[in-house]
């Protein structure tokens, strides 16, 4: 496929040819952006209830790019929440970005300047992080930027569309569309799970424990954001102990 060839070319040229990596990022982000458009549409319906105009929704989504966090904040806004509560909810709902940011640092070239690292980190979303760690070789800034320019804009547009036209669609279509995001998550997780048994076990136990914690009366009061953080820490740590990666030297050739 063209995208994977683009990606290899871009990785071979590395930082010398930023335009090529920018293009590769945008190409790889096209399916993500289309999914975002659908998901952001249902997010827009929530934002509409919070009183956002289409322009406010576009800017808000473009700058934040966090599905779970935005959902939580928009629903709190409707209830005139305290600012501190907004900060706390944002922090918990997005704590996984802290872990993803830590993982992303391992994809940077040692001589990558600070401002480029910071801008790359700002691009992190679940999906853009997913394609960025899959990038062959060191990650140039232009790759996540290309992905964000395309997918982030579509995320913003979807939100604005949902605000202006959300109540036009029948509920059956809205609930079908709101599954788009999860379909994308599945598509990111399954290919590596197919290749690496340990990832498969990790994914399946993620499903199982998440479902258990959400359904058992004792733990069902835990908010989804906190549940995600606790399970991520616990399962990833267990997997790292039971099935650690091969030693350093092999890593260098990536």
């Amino acid at each position: 496929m063209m995208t994977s060839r683009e990606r290899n070319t871009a990785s071979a040229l590395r930082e010398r040819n930023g335009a090529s990596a920018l293009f590769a990022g945008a190409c790889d982000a096209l399916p993500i952006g289309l999914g975002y458009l659908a998901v952001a549409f249902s997010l827009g319906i929530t934002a509409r209830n919070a009183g956002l105009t289409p322009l406010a929704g576009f800017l808000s989504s473009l700058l934040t790019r966090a599905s779970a966090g935005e959902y939580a904040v928009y629903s709190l806004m409707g209830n005139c929440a305290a600012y501190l509560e907004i900060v706390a909810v944002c922090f918990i709902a997005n704590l996984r970005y802290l872990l993803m940011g830590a993982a992303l640092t391992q994809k940077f070239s040692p001589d990558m300047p600070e401002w480029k690292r910071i801008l790359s980190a700002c691009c992190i979303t679940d999906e853009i992080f997913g394609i960025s760690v899959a990038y062959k070789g060191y990650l140039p800034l232009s790759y996540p930027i290309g992905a964000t320019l395309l997918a982030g804009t579509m995320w913003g547009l979807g939100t604005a569309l949902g605000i202006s036209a959300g109540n036009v669609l029948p509920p059956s279509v809205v609930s079908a569309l709101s599954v788009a995001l999860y379909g994308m998550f599945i598509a990111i997780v399954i290919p590596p799970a197919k290749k690496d048994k340990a990832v498969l076990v990790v994914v399946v136990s993620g499903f199982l424990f998440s479902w258990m914690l959400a359904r058992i009366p004792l733990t069902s009061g835990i908010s989804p954001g906190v549940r995600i953080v606790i399970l991520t820490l616990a399962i990833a740590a267990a997997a790292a102990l039971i099935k650690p990666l091969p030693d350093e030297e092999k890593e260098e050739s990536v």
Partner: protein
Amino acid sequence: MRDNGIWIYIVLMALVTNLIRILPVTVIRKKIRSRFLRSFLYYVPYVTLAVMTFPAIMDAAGSPLAGLAALLVGIVAAWTGLGLFPVSIICCVSVFVLGLVS
């Protein structure tokens, strides 16, 4: 709380979310040597995505059965090698169709 209030919320949300993204990048400067930490960070994205998907997909789909069906159909579709967008569409369509049937 109409106009100004909304913008304060929006700015707060964007600031906090992006600060979380930036924080680890400014703290961790070089390659992590610890084998445990490297392995841990390798597994993190997969666990997070798995945990976020299930059981949330059952609530999003409107009915648990439709959500479960979308999950299974999506896994099969991704396993056969389909990309992000086709898998998403297949999940949406299966929820829509099940909604029509039930």
